[in-house]
């Protein structure tokens, strides 16, 4: 990257002082707002002459980005600004050097003193605070799971979307869909994480973590997994990988799909049926909880110049127009309070049923199973394996107990 950056600094030659060149790493594929990222960078670079941002796309989502970051940092070449997936919050903050945004503000930008408080809801800002209380970065993309509905199928099966407020109702609807239409009733995303399951668990009163220890092996935890397992066993819910699952839903073979709001564009643009979304369901009599997906922006630059440049760029990204563009490009939720100042965004949230459904759950946001220390990634893998085993027919209580013990063994 040293070659690349020197090249771009030459390109912007005539200014008196060479502009500071910084790298910004992002994982957004073209289907996930990659184009918007490039537009925002270009816009920023054109707007001023002191900083040149070089965007670096990293394939393989947050995981791929982390892998590359790991190698780059080991080689002493970290970028200035990176998008870190929520699930990597603990691992990142424990192992990489970063600067808290407030530090930079205090040092170089006293005028921005209240920037954080003013821009974010506190529950959202807290998503980026690690277990040790450090503000690792600022929330950037926010995604929540919603329940997408294929209205063609639902109408045929005679199901009212307004009834789908609880998982119990969803389960009934799923069975009915299969009975009436012969199609699959429900698909709950099975990505390489247990995000969607966590939504169910927490909304059933189970706690993934209590006081830094795994605690999902509770009555509610078991009940939730049993519920999920029965859905799959019953045959109306689909048990399949994320790529094939979303393909099946967009192709019109599934009635309901519990997927990230990030899929909004994909679904609206490519499906032929009438697609709407409702907020993630909760369990009867329980409070709705939705774990936040998406990423935070962390500053990894260590030179003062670069830190400043990174902050300048970050500030630009949080301008309401930028956030609006970002939200529209990615399908994520706006993370800042003033984002709705942008008219387009405001109308979008108001008029787009899917966006609205997601937006309405912002207040229910919780953070994504922040297992402490370095064990987080391994714990996540264990949860994943457990999910596979349970959906494959394993005994719920034993599996939960086994996995919880194993994770707590790790944490200890």
């Amino acid at each position, binding site marked *: 990257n040293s070659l690349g950056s020197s090249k771009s600094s030459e390109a912007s030659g005539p200014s008196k002082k060479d502009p500071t060149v910084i790298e910004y790493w992002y994982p957004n594929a*073209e289907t996930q707002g990659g184009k918007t990222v490039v537009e925002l960078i270009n816009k920023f670079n054109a707007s001023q002459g002191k900083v040149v941002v070089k965007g670096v796309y990293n*394939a393989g989502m947050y995981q791929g980005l982390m892998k590359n970051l790991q190698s780059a940092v080991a080689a002493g070449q970290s970028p200035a600004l990176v998008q870190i997936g929520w699930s990597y919050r603990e691992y990142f903050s424990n192992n990489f050097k970063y600067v808290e945004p407030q530090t930079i503000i205090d040092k170089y930008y006293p005028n921005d003193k209240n920037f954080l408080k003013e821009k974010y809801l506190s529950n959202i800002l807290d998503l980026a605070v690690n277990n040790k209380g450090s503000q690792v970065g600022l929330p950037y993309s926010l995604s929540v799971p919603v329940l997408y509905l294929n209205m063609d199928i639902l109408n045929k099966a005679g199901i009212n979307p307004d009834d789908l407020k609880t998982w119990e109702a969803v389960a009934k609807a799923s069975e009915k869909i299969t009975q009436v239409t012969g199609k699959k009733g429900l698909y709950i995303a099975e990505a390489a994480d247990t995000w969607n399951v966590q939504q169910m668990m927490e909304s059933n009163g189970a706690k993934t973590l209590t006081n830094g220890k795994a605690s999902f092996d509770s009555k509610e935890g078991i009940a939730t997994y049993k519920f999920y397992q029965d859905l799959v066993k019953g045959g109306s819910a689909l048990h399949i990988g994320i790529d094939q699952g979303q393909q099946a839903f967009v192709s019109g073979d599934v009635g309901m799909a519990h997927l990230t709001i990030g899929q909004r564009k994909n679904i609206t643009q*490519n499906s032929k049926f009438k697609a709407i979304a409702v907020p993630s369901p909760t369990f009867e009599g329980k409070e709705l909880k939705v774990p936040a997906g998406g990423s935070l922006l962390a500053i990894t630059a260590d030179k003062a110049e670069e830190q400043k440049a990174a902050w300048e760029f970050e500030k630009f990204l949080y301008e309401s127009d930028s956030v609006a563009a970002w939200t529209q490009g990615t399908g994520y939720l706006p993370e800042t309070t003033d984002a709705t100042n942008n008219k387009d965004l405001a109308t979008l949230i108001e008029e787009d049923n899917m966006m609205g459904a997601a937006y309405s759950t912002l207040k229910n946001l919780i953070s994504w199973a922040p297992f402490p220390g370095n064990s987080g990634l391994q714990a996540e893998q264990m949860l994943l394996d457990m999910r596979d085993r349970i959906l494959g027919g394993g005994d719920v209580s034993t599996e939960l107990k086994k996995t919880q013990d194993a994770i707590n063994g790790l944490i200890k």
Partner: protein
Amino acid sequence: MKIEGRLSSVIWKWLFIVVVIIWIMPIIFALGTSFRTLQDVYNNVLAIFPTSLTFENYSQLYEQLPLFKIIMNNFTIATTVTILKLVTSFLAAYAFVYFSFNTKKPLYFILITTIFIPFTVTMVPNYLMLSKVGLTDNTLGVILPQIADAAGIFLLTQVMRSIPYSLIESAKLDEISNYRIMKDIVLPLIQPQMTSVGIWFFVNSWNEFVWPSLILKSKETYTLPLALQMYISSEGGTNFAVAMAVSVITMSIPLLLYLIFQKYIIGTFTSSGIK
């Protein structure tokens, strides 16, 4: 060959045709998909050929990426890797087969063992090494570790060992230099294997993804497999149609080269009777 032979050869021929169909179908599917809109792909899964032909996927690519530059990068890398691998493998194999020296066996064993070393072992140390000398985001940095592959040495050694030794003896009697023996005798005789392994090297380097994705950062240095990754995402969904357009571009270039030289390449596989 004759009557009975004919019967079984008919059965085999049909079996071959079935396999060929299975082998080719995905390619046709990819080709067809690349000319359809994503919506069309989702909703008419069975239609292999586009209901309405669109070049949208390709034009989208052309707009978003420095496509020509990327293809050139790919080409430079794959060609260099292939040539360097073939040359070094050939030289080493020749030494292993026709020279004798006391450390030959252990040395050969060690080199062959390197084939067994998974890329996970070498990836990070290589990255650290190359970034130290400033070869990240650089074509050379992509090329170098790819050359380190003993598979060619292995194959060519095995093949050279099946050349009748009397041919080499005959040349030795005429005081033909090793260089000429390589060029005039060994090389023509192992040409089929050189060709097949050469194509293999080229195609694999052409399609290499893991290593370049680690080392290449800017779109100007990208290769096609990296471009493909830009359309694959578990979060936002995969743009299958555009991904297939990238794939079609990616596969069509080596394929085109193959078709141009096909007569020559396949011809080398029919030269029977080395011995």
